[in-house]
């Protein structure tokens, strides 16, 4: 009789504890919100800077010249320059080393093709874009490397799936994609 009573008490307290709304764990529910960005892909250059938490933040700058899409080298030059004042106000920074740099880009498909002429290659090209800069790149952290790779990949390919091989003043890196 005693054990029955304690059992009933326990179950009752369990029931009472289960009443009402409890706090829960974080639960995943569906995908993210997909939002159109203005200006559209053909009228913008996509630069990958870094947010205050170290994660990449893309910036879409409208093109102020007629040729679209712009050559990748020009996009990289814009990346290597610092963020604008408005962007900095939102906490956007760059991790790339300061100072004047020169950038050379060799598109992926054929090494002898004219620079900047073949931006619209088929997606998922197996070969890598070659980027050569005058700054160092082997000693760079993951964040600035991702800035260079992602900006180049999206300048070369709207889907950003092409691989990029970086060569700097201190040597070259294996080809990598924008993840």
């Amino acid at each position, binding site marked *: 009789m005693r054990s029955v009573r304690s059992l009933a008490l326990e179950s009752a307290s369990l029931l009472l504890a289960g009443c009402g709304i409890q706090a829960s764990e974080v*639960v995943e529910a*569906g995908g993210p919100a997909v939002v159109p960005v203005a200006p559209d892909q053909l009228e913008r250059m996509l630069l990958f800077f870094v947010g205050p938490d170290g994660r990449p933040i893309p910036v879409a700058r409208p093109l102020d010249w007629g040729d679209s899409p712009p050559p990748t080298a020009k996009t990289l030059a814009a990346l290597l320059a610092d963020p604008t004042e408005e962007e900095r106000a939102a906490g956007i920074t760059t991790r790339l080393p300061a100072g004047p740099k020169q950038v050379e880009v060799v598109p992926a498909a054929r090494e002898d093709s004219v620079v900047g002429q073949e931006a619209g290659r088929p997606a998922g090209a197996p070969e890598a874009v070659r980027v050569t800069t005058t700054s160092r790149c082997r000693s760079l952290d993951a964040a600035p490397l991702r800035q260079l790779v992602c900006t180049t990949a999206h300048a070369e390919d709207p889907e950003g799936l092409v691989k990029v091989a970086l060569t700097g003043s201190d040597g070259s890196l294996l080809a990598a994609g924008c993840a």
Partner: protein
Amino acid sequence: MLISGLRTRLVLAFLLVAAVGCGTTAALTYREARNAILEQAQDTAVSSFRDQIQELHLNLPPNNEQMQGMVRGLARQGKPRNWWVYVEYGSVRISSGTNPTSTVITPELRRQARGTPHGSFQRVVKNGEPYLTVVVPVVFKTAQTGTGGQTVRPTGLTFYAVMQLTDEQANIDAMVVAARDGALPALAIALVPALLAARSVLRPVRDLRQAARSLGRGRLDTRIPVKGGGELSELARTFNESTAALERSVDELQRAEARARRFASDVSHELRTPLAGMLAVTELLDEDAAGLDPDTAAAVRLISNETGKLAVLVEDLMEISRFDARAAELNTDEVDAAETIRRTLQSRHWTDPAEIVLDLPDGIRARLDPRRFDVVIANLVGNALRHGRPPVTVGLRAESLAQDPADGAGGVALWLVTEVADRGPGIPPDVLPHVFDRFYKADQARTRSAGSGLGLAITLENVRLHGGTVRAANGPDGGAVFAVEIPLTASEVTA
């Protein structure tokens, strides 16, 4: 009502089963319903929040005015109810409320939003209030709009929504109340079959108890009606069989006893007539014994003596047979008790003051059967003279004795107490309980005695017939004391 009572235990067991049933059902139903309510609220909130965010257009980076507009627009469209909307971009924090950041959103939710490109939610209880916090990170397609590009990149923009779950809380509380209000009447209703079941189980038990009690009162023909084939009817059947067997054996015993009594009675009757003839002859022989030679005279006196004893024995046997057959009658008369005793002693010639000391106050009148009272006194005094030593004291007094509680209200009644005491060695304690038994010999070695062995038994029966008692005890200064107590209102006592 004791907890160990069968009815209580049955009812409690019934209620326990009902309570467990009700409780389990209510708890499971409640849990499912609560989860359904919460899931619906959560899913609706997350999907409608995401849908509304997807209506927006973004610049990268968005400026503060644009974000403020978005947040206000989202907060206005709050569905299914009002929510607070927060947006985080880089180092910018903007909200639809007064605080730029929420105190309800947990670090885990922020980490989740940064780690995976998924919408997420979390229920948070803060200050006893339940909140639903929702996070939706914003991504964009990198390819040109309408070309079907698949690659999405995070914009760095994250929207949070915080809403109170007060309606859900109210619904869930209402369910708890409903479950309780439903379970209690269900328990009350369960009490009815519980009591009915207890009654149906207890009725045979009660029947059995009544039957056992009636059996104890001597009604051996008591039987229980046997219904159905359950364990209880099995018990009733066994009870009936046992009762029938008992009735048979008792009946047989009674018949055997009756046969034995009739035999004793018949034998004494048959012996009486020849004995009367023998007595007459021995009296004649006794008178002539003086003229015979000494040996023959001794033999004749022995025969005469033994024949006299035999006659007494047969008379006593017949008397006791009448008592056994309940044929003894009480012929009462209002007499003076002292006078009656004196007459008894005189008729037996027990008048020597050295042997008999009398303490007989006059004036105590009682309704007695003079013949039977004479037998009682004669037996007791004769017994005292034979087995004790003189002087034998015969005392008489009227005494107020508490009535036997079994007889009535426990009042006080007047009793006639007659005491016969001797100065002998008294009665050994192991013999005391048997002195009124028939043919009981105090001394086993002494097989022959002057009495028939029935004297005290006949005394007891005679006193009983008067509605009284007779007790044997040892006096404080040695000697046996026999006390006869007869109610003075003997006329009201039926034999």
